[in-house]
């Protein structure tokens, strides 16, 4: 019995293959973007965990300083003597040639066996590892970058993440200039049972339990949350398609349901069959979607990796691994999404009176009450969004503002459009124009889900586009200020640097040292730079957000520091706040500067004070000011006359070009996700128009009978689609701008620590409008062709008495 009933139910899809294709493709697209984004996130997180396991040994208990950033050598000795089986680690950032690496100095003799990544067996020659010039254990990629830049022997390890190197602790101590200052201590699993307590032995250090999340994973949370939000948006847009298609298919089959039940099929069996049918469709669509998602993720991953490297210094491989859990999650999402979007239709079948006739048109016709309710809920969500923006704090509040804003605007759209159409209908006097607006209003409920999906996609495009363009424009202006020197040079060692300092002044307007040390300020690891603050370059160009009137004089005199915006926001410090810098000297903050693209805090002090407090600092890098016309000549002389390698002399134009290229690549992913979301919304519109075109005939035939040609009716259908798309686009612009404001003023500040001025780009909207309207024309093409070429006999069938 069940099989016979199933055959009858499935015959619907055999007769409507396009409807079936729409359903499967809609769900596939939704799943694809969602699972693609999840694949990228999973790959990145696995990479962070791998790197953390190797570099931070987070599966081991560790001892870390309670205050400051170092443990005295004496504490380590005290612990060892008391019987604690611990191993010292010294780590810090170190520049080798043009490459900055995270250098981790370890003691191979005391290193616990369980420590990830490094094993003493990794080095074939322990003596070479522990003696000068030393060995660097690095990844293949890092080895390529360091080749020819260091005298240390490079040893490649497949476990090493890019941008990091293991070396002997003695060598790290010397290179990083951390004499007797250990970064942390690894605690071996095997310990004596009668150890003296840490609190009495070394109260200055704290125990860190294993299993903490990697720092970079926490740092990149907001980025992955952004990607997830995009994926979820596309998923929801896709579910709109499923909801509309399943709903109509159920309504069209109501007669079949009624007949089957009249013939004795129990309601439970009918429900079971329908659920089974949906599950099979969801499974097929899920497999297709996860497959497409894998392709999407593979295409996007290299750009995501570049973004993560650029924004957070996080190393993520560019190739995607296949994870069974990811496939399972993608399929589960497809199935769960189908069930959620079909729940209402299934419920209707269960509660359907046996003798109710099918009403496919009525199904598409929402009640006025429904639209009003939607309007009210939408308005409440917008109010909630405003309240959260005003009173909320934190990244989650920022995303809640976004969610309420987008959902509220989408819910309000049909009601607002309906009201506008009613006004237009009232104001028009010509019969055909009146009918056009009235008929458009009548089609609105059937198209509302697609229009809401379109609004979300367009608003996301306008919003994210405005954010990216604002960022780009600000970034370029900022680069122009920040990269004021005509040439940037780097010596290969200190003796060459010394020679450079003597050689350059006679051949340039000024020489600006770019020296830095890493240290901890207010509990945060950051970089401290020295700046020649009395040079006009800084006074004229440095991008200050706020500062005292005499900011540069005070910096030059060593009586003040500048902090970057990220640090300023994170720490809640202000002008006048005193900062204790590494070495114990205290100076007040006299200014704040913008520092886009840098996830870390930064402090700038006067170069003289800097050199006095950190005499051992590496003095390899310099900015060189010359008249712009002389820059190329000096570059040539630095290479040919002075003997610097070409890659150690970079001119301003090249540096800016490189920076812009990094910036643009960072937002390739955003652009691609935007385009995909718009594509899914376009498909939602196509599917809705196709659905409507199947039941349009009875509405259009009377007009044809009264003398309106098929061609004119088709033209009116095009106009209607374009009008609705245009109206949705117009509605999407303010929503998108609000979205951009939230991104720039709330989410970015929370996620990255900088706030950008918002700029408006009407030309970008125009391009988006053209793309969107082109998509509209594509979406209406099939239904239109169907209408324009419809045979008069099909139209006559509408009037036939024995239909």
């Amino acid at each position, binding site marked *: 019995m069940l099989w016979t009933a199933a055959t009858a139910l499935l015959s619907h899809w055999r007769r409507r293959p396009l409807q079936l294709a729409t359903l499967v493709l809609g769900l596939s697209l939704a799943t694809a973007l969602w699972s693609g984004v999840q694949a990228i996130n999973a790959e990145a997180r696995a990479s962070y965990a791998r790197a953390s396991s190797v570099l931070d040994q987070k599966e081991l208990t560790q001892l870390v300083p309670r205050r400051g950033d170092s443990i005295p050598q004496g504490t380590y000795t005290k612990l060892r003597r008391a019987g604690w089986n611990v191993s010292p680690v010294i780590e810090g950032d170190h520049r080798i040639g043009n490459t900055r690496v995270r250098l981790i100095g370890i003691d191979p003799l005391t290193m616990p066996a369980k420590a990830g990544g490094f094993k003493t067996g990794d080095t074939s020659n322990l003596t070479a590892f522990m003696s000068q010039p030393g060995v660097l254990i690095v990844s293949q990629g890092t080895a390529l970058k360091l080749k020819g830049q260091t005298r240390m022997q490079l040893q490649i390890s497949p476990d090493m993440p890019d941008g990091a190197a293991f070396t002997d602790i003695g060598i790290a101590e010397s290179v990083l200039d951390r004499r007797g200052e250990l970064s942390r201590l690894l605690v071996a699993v095997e310990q004596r049972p009668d150890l003296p307590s840490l609190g009495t032995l070394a109260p200055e250090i704290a125990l860190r339990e294993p299993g903490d999340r990697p720092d970079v994973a926490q740092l990149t949370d907001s980025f992955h949350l952004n990607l997830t939000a995009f994926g979820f948006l596309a998923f929801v847009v896709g579910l709109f398609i499923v909801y509309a298609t399943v709903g109509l298919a159920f309504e069209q089959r109501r007669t079949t349901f009624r007949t089957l039940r009249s013939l004795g099929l129990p309601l439970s069996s009918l429900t079971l069959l329908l659920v089974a049918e949906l599950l099979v469709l969801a499974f097929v669509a899920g497999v297709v979607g996860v497959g497409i998602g894998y392709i999407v993720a593979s295409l996007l991953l290299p750009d995501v990796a570049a973004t993560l490297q650029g924004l957070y210094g996080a190393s993520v491989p560019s190739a995607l691994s296949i994870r069974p859990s990811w496939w399972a999650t993608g399929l589960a999402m497809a199935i769960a999404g189908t069930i959620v979007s079909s729940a209402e239709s299934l419920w209707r079948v269960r509660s359907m009176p046996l003798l109710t006739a099918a009403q496919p048109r009525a199904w598409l016709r929402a009640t006025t009450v429904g639209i009003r309710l939607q309007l009210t809920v939408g308005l409440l969500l917008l109010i909630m969004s405003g309240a959260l923006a005003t009173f909320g704090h934190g990244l989650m509040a920022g995303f809640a503002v976004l969610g309420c804003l987008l959902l509220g605007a989408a819910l309000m759209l049909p009601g607002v459009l309906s009201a506008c159409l009613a006004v237009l209908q009232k104001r028009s006097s010509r019969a055909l124009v009146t009918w056009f607006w009235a008929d458009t209003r*009548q089609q609105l409920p059937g198209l509302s889900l697609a229009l809401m999906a379109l609004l979300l996609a367009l608003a996301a495009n306008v919003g994210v586009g405005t954010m990216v363009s604002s960022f780009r424009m600000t970034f370029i202006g900022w680069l122009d200020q920040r990269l004021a020197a005509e040439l940037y040079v780097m010596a290969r060692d200190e003796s060459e640097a010394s020679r450079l300092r003597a050689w350059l002044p006679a051949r340039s307007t000024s020489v600006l040292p770019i020296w830095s040390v890493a240290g901890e300020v207010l509990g945060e690891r950051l970089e401290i730079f020295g700046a020649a603050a009395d040079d006009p370059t800084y006074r004229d160009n440095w991008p200050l957000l706020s500062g005292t009137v005499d900011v540069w004089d005070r910096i030059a005199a060593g009586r003040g520091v500048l902090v970057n915006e990220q640090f300023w926001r994170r720490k809640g410090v202000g002008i006048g706040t005193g900062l204790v810098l590494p070495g114990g000297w205290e100076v007040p903050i006299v200014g704040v500067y913008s520092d886009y693209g840098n996830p870390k805090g930064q402090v700038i002090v006067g170069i003289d004070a800097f050199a006095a407090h950190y005499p051992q600092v590496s003095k390899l890098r310099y900015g060189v000011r010359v008249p712009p016309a002389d820059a190329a000549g000096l570059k040539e002389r630095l290479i040919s006359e002075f003997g610097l390698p070409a890659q150690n002399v970079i001119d301003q134009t090249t540096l800016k070009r490189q920076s812009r290229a990094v910036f643009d690549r960072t937002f390739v992913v955003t652009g691609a996700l935007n385009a995909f979301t718009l594509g899914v919304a376009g498909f939602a519109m196509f599917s809705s128009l196709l659905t409507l075109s199947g039941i349009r005939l009875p509405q259009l035939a009377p007009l044809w009978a009264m003398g*309106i*040609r098929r061609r004119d009716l088709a033209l009116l259908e095009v106009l209607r689609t374009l009008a609705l798309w245009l109206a949705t686009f117009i509605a999407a612009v303010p929503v998108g701008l609000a979205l951009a404001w939230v991104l720039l003023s709330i989410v970015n500040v929370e996620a990255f620590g900088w706030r950008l001025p918002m700029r408006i780009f009407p030309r970008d909207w125009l391009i988006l409008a053209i793309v969107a309207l082109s998509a509209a024309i594509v979406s209406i093409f099939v239904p239109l062709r169907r209408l324009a070429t419809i045979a008069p*006999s099909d139209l006559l069938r509408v009037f036939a008495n024995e239909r």
Partner: protein
Amino acid sequence: MLLSLRNVSKSYTTAEGRLDILKAIDFDLDAGESVALTGESGSGKSTLLHLAGGLDHPDTGQILSAGRDIAALDDRGRAEYRRAAVGLVFQQFNLIPSLDVAANISFHAKLAGRHDREWERELVGRLGVEALLSRYPEQLSGGQQQRVAIGRTLAARPPLVLADEPTGNLDESTGDAVIGIMLSLTKSAGAALLMVTHSSRLAQMLDRKVHLSGGKIV
């Protein structure tokens, strides 16, 4: 002569093969005349009506209206003919669901460029639909919908009204009332009426009766 069909034939191709619906039909209709078109199901009544209304075109023959051969017109010409010269009333009413009763009634007249408020007001009164003007088709009963459909047709003052079983969806008393109104109003408007009906009782209310059988007038 308002309408003349000369040697008109029409056939359709079906799964079973070619089906001859009308075979060399000759038929005349004078201005102001009302004619009932009767016959069995499938005898070609609706097809003849569709051909006369310019909704379909014959395989052979001429359909002359005011000296013009409708059969020879292109799509644009036939659309113009339907707009200007014909009013159609169907069994399914076929009102425009998105427009209210008032807009439905004036719709065809406005399309034809013959919107006359006075005449429309008179029609609304005689049809008894004054109280329904702001309602939508889905809020009306079958009889009310058909009265609105008649109003829409006659408001345009077409010289020819074609009605395809206009009472087929109505009960007998409502149907009689609707036909009474339609006949009276077409007479007032000076229009000719060609009405397809199965009912010989209704057919007798018209000036003349034409019976179709096997694709021929008998």
